[in-house]
């Protein structure tokens, strides 16, 4: 990322639609008029359009829809998240790349984003279908100064942020399946994968991978997940501008992350529970080898799932295989109409 180009975008962006002279830009950025012109040519390749009028100067007339580090940063109101953005058209996995960057010592807040992933992955290296440019595929590197024991809360912070941003953008309310899957009408809309490297008392890095199915049509969804996954387009019939989506996501994540560090988990907990999937419903779950039934009763102050067992005791679950769907046959019935009607 050229910092000159970053400054140039910022400079022009601040002027809104008004003209600035090439002379003024060259003086402010301390580069030659030729260099200014070269930078603009580069930006045009990213899809920016400038209007140049003699004696008046330049102005931005169009910001590209095309995803790039520049377009995401243009108008991104964050202090540290996404100050460094690495964008690829196609990459094996943003998560794998982000971990490599993290190990090489990249800054807190670095974002790796791709139009498509050839080998997107979920937990335990399960495949995440993302070899299309209709979704949002990105990973964020964080270096929080908190105890590794608390780090799992950040997966719930991220889930809450996703739910809030999806709701704001699409006017549909997703549900969060503990701890961090997002569902719409019982189908998976977005997933989060958090990987960390830490010592007993210090986090080296934490990489949060986010995948959101945005503009895929039903036919564009991979056959193997068509009946269990969904996209915002399928649910609402609308398409969404990915750059704006990512900007909102990063802004909200930075705000919520800061709030979590400053004030603790309780505000996140409250928001998370508003989106909780199967709240007060019965599910089957397995911890270690024991299989049992219980009712979801929300989350604890540390983010653990509160499960009321058959004997009436409340257990805190940190890690469990939960069978969310089979105990409720009605869950497999699709109710897309509901959300479509909301839109119309």
């Amino acid at each position: 990322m050229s910092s000159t180009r970053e400054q140039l975008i910022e400079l022009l962006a601040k002027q809104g639609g008004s003209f600035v002279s090439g002379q003024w830009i060259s003086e402010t950025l301390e580069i030659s008029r030729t260099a200014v012109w070269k930078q603009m040519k580069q930006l045009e390749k990213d899809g920016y359009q400038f209007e140049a009028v003699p004696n008046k100067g330049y102005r931005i007339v169009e910001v590209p829809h095309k995803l790039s580090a520049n377009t995401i940063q243009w108008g991104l109101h964050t202090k540290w998240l996404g100050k460094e953005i690495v964008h690829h058209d196609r990459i094996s996995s943003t998560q794998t790349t982000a971990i490599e960057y993290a190990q090489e010592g990249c800054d807190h807040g670095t974002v790796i984003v791709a139009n498509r992933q050839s080998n997107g992955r979920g937990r335990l290296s399960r495949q995440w279908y993302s070899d299309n440019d209709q979704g949002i595929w990105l990973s964020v590197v964080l270096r929080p100064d908190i105890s590794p024991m608390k780090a799992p809360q950040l997966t719930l912070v991220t889930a809450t942020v996703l739910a809030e941003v999806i709701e704001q953008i699409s006017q549909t309310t997703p549900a969060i399946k503990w701890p961090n899957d997002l569902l719409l009408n019982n189908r998976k809309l977005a997933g989060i994968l958090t990987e960390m490297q830490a010592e007993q008392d210090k986090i080296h890095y934490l990489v949060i991978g986010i995948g959101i199915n945005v503009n895929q049509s039903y036919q564009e969804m991979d056959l193997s997940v068509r009946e269990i996954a969904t996209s915002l387009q399928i649910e609402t019939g609308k398409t969404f501008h990915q750059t704006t989506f990512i900007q909102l996501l990063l802004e909200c994540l930075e705000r919520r992350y800061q709030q979590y560090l400053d004030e603790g988990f309780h505000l996140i907990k409250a928001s998370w529970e508003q989106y909780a999937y199967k709240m007060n419903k019965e599910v089957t779950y397995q911890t270690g080898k024991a299989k049992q039934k219980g009712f979801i009763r929300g989350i604890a102050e540390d983010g653990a799932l509160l499960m009321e067992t058959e004997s009436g005791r409340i257990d805190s679950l940190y890690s469990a295989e939960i069978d969310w769907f089979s105990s409720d046959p009605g869950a497999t019935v699709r109710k897309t109409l509901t959300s479509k009607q909301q839109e119309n």
Partner: protein
Amino acid sequence: MLKLEDIQALIQAIDQSSLDEFIYEHEGSKIKLRKKSNHHEHKKVMTSVSAEPEKYEEVSEREQIKEQENHSSSEKEETIAFDHEILSPMVGTFYHSSTPDSAPFVSLGDKVNEKTVVCIVEAMKLFNEIEADVEGEVVEILAENGELVEYGQPLFRVKTK
């Protein structure tokens, strides 16, 4: 972590004191000094040593003392085949490999170094890759794949020399 000089100073201080026994525990290391009233002999037991460089001094100290014991004492002690334990940094599920189908990160007898990933502990879908943090040989694996582990629970034992 105590240095050799500190231990020597301690021994001297206890020698001159009316104490019969002194136990010091810090971050997984334990030092026990016991005075026998009839003949002045010190015994020192270390159950585990963390990865700080000082350990070499302490290990050699331990060996010295063990030698003394062999000569002068018939009291049996627990055999120490390891000198580092890798602990779980959080409550969660222990995974010995990155996917259910792949080979474990490490097996018994494997040589590891500071950067070797030995397992994953997962809590609330956060996957924590645990590194060995020491150079040595895996001599014991204490958790089973898929098992729920507690904070601070020993997962592996490593012999560092």
